[in-house]
């Protein structure tokens, strides 16, 4: 009978694990839906900033702006976006893989490296690595990041780039392609890229106040900000959807395990009963002789 007791307690423990993973799956699913909506929300902002920039390009040399300055890369800043919590499948390890590979490449090329981390998992990782200098760590970002968090990160990246302290700024994040496909990747945000293909509406009589330089400053900042913000939103949506899938798999595994254990327990109980019956009938037989 000891066997069945043991199995019973194992089934109980797996069941309670399943309860937790199931709850986490539901929470992640509802958060993912909201985060997924949010990834689309900043599109008009980016679009408007692009159009403004195209308009500006007809009046002034956009590429001479310091944020567009292409310099030979001697040192670069990486903004690594991971999650605060684990149990999100391969979410954090995918980011880690890319980050470590980039660091190695920089090391080989003799490029100095600085890092800003977003999320506790990223800061824990970066703190252990020797190849990089961590200049900022942001943790516990709200589920719906707003301009406030963004500006803090953006401003420190921008001021370092403008000062010539770093020659490039890259973001390592997880791109949210769909709720089943997410891809960890590196995106360059500074020097800013400019898409010449966008045709501006010709308007020569537009007044720029206080001047084209200031407006260009404002627009470029917004455009770079929008890119970074999109990366934050995508990373958020990816995290939730990967956590949802991971927890769904865990729940399914727990269910399978419970089925197997239940079968085994029933078998053990049946064989115990058969054993007992055999003993009883054996005893009766012995008495009647």
């Amino acid at each position, binding site marked *: 009978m000891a066997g069945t007791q043991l199995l019973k307690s194992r089934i109980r423990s797996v069941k309670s694990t399943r309860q937790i993973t199931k709850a986490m799956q539901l929470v992640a699913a509802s958060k993912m839906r909201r985060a997924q909506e949010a990834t689309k929300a900043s599109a008009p902002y980016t679009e408007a900033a692009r159009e*403004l920039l195209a308009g500006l390009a007809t009046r002034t040399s956009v590429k001479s702006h310091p944020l567009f300055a292409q310099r030979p890369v001697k040192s670069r800043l990486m903004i690594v976006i991971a999650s605060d919590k684990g149990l999100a499948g391969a979410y954090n390890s995918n980011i880690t893989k890319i980050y470590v590979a980039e660091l190695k490449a920089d090391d080989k090329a003799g490029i100095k490296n600085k890092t800003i981390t977003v999320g506790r998992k990223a800061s824990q990782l970066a703190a252990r690595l020797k190849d990089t200098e961590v200049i900022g760590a942001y943790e516990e970002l709200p589920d719906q990041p707003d*301009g406030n968090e963004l500006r803090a990160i953006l401003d420190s990246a921008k001021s370092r780039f403008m000062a010539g302290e770093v020659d490039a700024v890259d973001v390592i994040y997880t791109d949210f392609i769909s709720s089943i496909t997410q891809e960890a990747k590196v995106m360059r945000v500074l020097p800013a890229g400019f898409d010449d293909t966008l045709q501006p509406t010709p308007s020569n009589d537009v007044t720029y106040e206080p001047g084209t330089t200031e407006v260009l400053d404002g627009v470029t900042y917004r455009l770079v900000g929008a890119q970074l913000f999109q990366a934050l939103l995508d990373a958020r949506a990816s995290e939730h959807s990967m956590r949802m899938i991971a927890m769904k798999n865990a729940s399914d595994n727990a269910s399978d395990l419970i089925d197997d254990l239940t079968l085994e327990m029933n078998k053990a109980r049946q064989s115990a009963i058969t054993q007992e019956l055999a003993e009883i009938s054996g005893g009766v037989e012995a008495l009647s002789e």
Partner: protein
Amino acid sequence: MHLQLITLTGIAIDQEIYEISAPTAAGPISVFPGHEPLVSVAIPGALAVRYKKGDPDDAREFFAISGGVIEVNQTAVRVLVDEADHGDDIIEAESQAALDRALKLKTEAKNQVDIDHAKELIDRHTVRLQVAGLRRHKRS
């Protein structure tokens, strides 16, 4: 004149209006229909929107905006800002408390990240308080 107030989190306003007042780097401006084409840099402050001609000052709606860009042409205004909080959503006491917290945070900050963060918060809540003040004025 058509107004589009675009923020990072989506489009806050997308409708016909009569007048918009906004703080810019070259001083506060008010835009009415038929304004000459203009692109200007918006600074953090209070944005006021009058929906219909003849609406009294009390009927204006206020938004606390962060920095951005304002684009004006004859028939439309496009305001591109990181954030725009509707005046009705701002609770004065809360903003005041948040501002005090931010000021305290700045004096206690140990590293650049904390200082940057505190500065952000101070700017933000100062603007919010300003907008809340305008709203109180509107009610009284």
